[in-house]
């Protein structure tokens, strides 16, 4: 028999976990993500996506990266070039340092609006807007940059005040001790289904902390470093990171690091119960198995101690 109980266990609150007294195979619904967190999560999904796609549109205006304050056309770190042969055929060349790759069709040269090969860094299906349109790409980018920044400030403020960062994200000593086991579990795609699934593991904690405080803040600062007006006050930071073109390069790298994070994040969601995870982030309710061991425990009080969250 399957039974369900509903418990309050919002991330960042200290509501005690009460295990179901019902026999094996019982599951319970836990209120896991509060409404502000869910809202801010989905606002972030939209703003990050549009900033990424419009960012690639902006990148296409100068599809090359350099270090330093000015760009050196002969020594780019990365360049998405197009080369034309005598017959007018275009070849897309991706240059990374001294290495060259033929990436015709995707990078350097891809189909334009009329279906013919066109010289452009990233293909139109990855840019907002689709056709080469720098001024419109900037409009999208700055609009969603504001949403991303304001949403991010709200998220960090809310998470600090409600102790979401301190309780759910900041690793405990026990977390650090369990890092080896956590890595082993991750590479074997093993996920907890019981009460343990309600708390973030050490790798999740580190990933979220790095994404929020290093990637999130870093990409905004590197974006501001590209603004000539802001550089009148930010130039010490710009020079510290290696110059305006270096800031542009770091901005680009962090953007792709965000993509890598999102791919891993979505993959983990898919393999750890996509429906349950999505319900958790949409309605707030997340279903967990009630651990058999704990069900066997005679007194629920003992269970509370074992599964408490600090």
């Amino acid at each position, binding site marked *: 028999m399957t039974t369900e109980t509903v418990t309050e266990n919002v991330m960042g609150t200290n509501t005690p976990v009460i295990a179901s007294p019902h026999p094996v195979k019982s599951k319970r619904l836990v209120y896991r993500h509060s409404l502000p967190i869910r809202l801010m999560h989905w606002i972030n999904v939209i703003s990050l996506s549009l900033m990424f796609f419009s960012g690639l549109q902006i990148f296409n205006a100068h599809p090359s990266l350099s270090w330093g304050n000015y760009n050196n056309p002969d020594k780019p770190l990365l360049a998405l070039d197009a080369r034309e042969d005598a017959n007018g055929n275009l070849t897309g060349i991706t240059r990374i340092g001294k290495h060259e790759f033929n990436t015709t069709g995707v990078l350097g040269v891809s189909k334009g609006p009329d279906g013919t090969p066109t010289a452009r860094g990233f293909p139109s299906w990855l*840019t907002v807007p689709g056709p080469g349109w720098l*001024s419109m790409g900037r409009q999208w980018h700055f609009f969603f940059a504001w949403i991303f920044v304001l949403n991010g400030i709200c998220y960090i403020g809310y998470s600090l005040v409600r102790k979401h960062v301190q309780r759910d994200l900041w690793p405990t000593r026990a977390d650090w001790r369990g890092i080896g086991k956590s890595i082993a579990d991750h590479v074997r795609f093993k996920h907890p289904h019981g009460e343990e699934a309600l708390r973030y593991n050490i790798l999740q904690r580190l990933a979220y902390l790095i994404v929020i405080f290093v990637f999130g803040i870093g990409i905004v600062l590197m974006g501001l470093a590209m603004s000539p*007006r802001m550089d009148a006050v930010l130039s010490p930071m710009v020079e510290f990171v290696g110059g305006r073109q270096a800031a542009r390069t770091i901005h680009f790298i962090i953007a792709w690091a965000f993509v890598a994070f999102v791919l891993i994040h979505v993959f983990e969601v898919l393999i750890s119960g996509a429906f349950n995870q999505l319900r958790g982030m949409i309605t707030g309710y997340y279903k967990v198995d009630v651990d058999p061991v704990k069900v066997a425990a005679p007194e629920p009080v003992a269970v509370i101690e074992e599964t408490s969250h600090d």
Partner: protein
Amino acid sequence: MTDRRTFLRMAIMGTAGLLVAGCDKISQSSWGPKVLGKAQGLNRRVQALLSPSSAMAKEYTEADISPTFHPNGTTMPDTPEYQALMANNFRDYKLKVTGLVTKPGEFSIDDLKKLDNRTQITRHDCVEGWSAIGKWQGTQLSALLDHVGVDPKARFVVFHCLDNMDVDTPYYESVDIEEARHPQTILAFDLNDKPLPVSNGAPLRLRVGRQLGYKQAKYLGSIELVDSFGKIGSGNGGYWEDQGYEWYAGI
């Protein structure tokens, strides 16, 4: 397995395609750019708060000068007026100052040099994303404004250029009086200790220290002080602004 993979790939590309197509619809609508453009007004106001109007762009050293200074936009103006000036090595060149000023006039490069002559090594940031560093020698615009006397009604300085874009649309740009009076706003006649090359805007170009490259108008023909740029070009304050770029080019 293959079916699932194909399905996944189709789903991802389909979603990306729908998203991009949806965004293209919004970009082409009449309301979309207006809504998105709200952020640009916010950029200008917040940046003015965070980086005050008196803040100075970083000045670099000779060692920082970039080996090349990429010329962008027009590199050889084809108007007869410009061609005639160039044929004579710009000896007959005079910058006209018109509009809301007490003493309109015409100034040769030597006249400008007598008003003010300064050097600064600053970075040029193109809206496309690249940068270059050059050593500029020129006349502070505020010295010229003081010389001609600015009418209190004037709010903007418009720079009319000698080059045409799209065959017959003259390039122009504008800044407000505050930006025009910034110490790093200069009318430059030398780049890296040599007279400005034609491709970089000979004989005279604008340098605004804290704005993007499209503000740095080349081939200056005349300067006009106005209370509004609504009747110039398509009314947005500059050639690129008329193509959808922001008048405020600080980011």
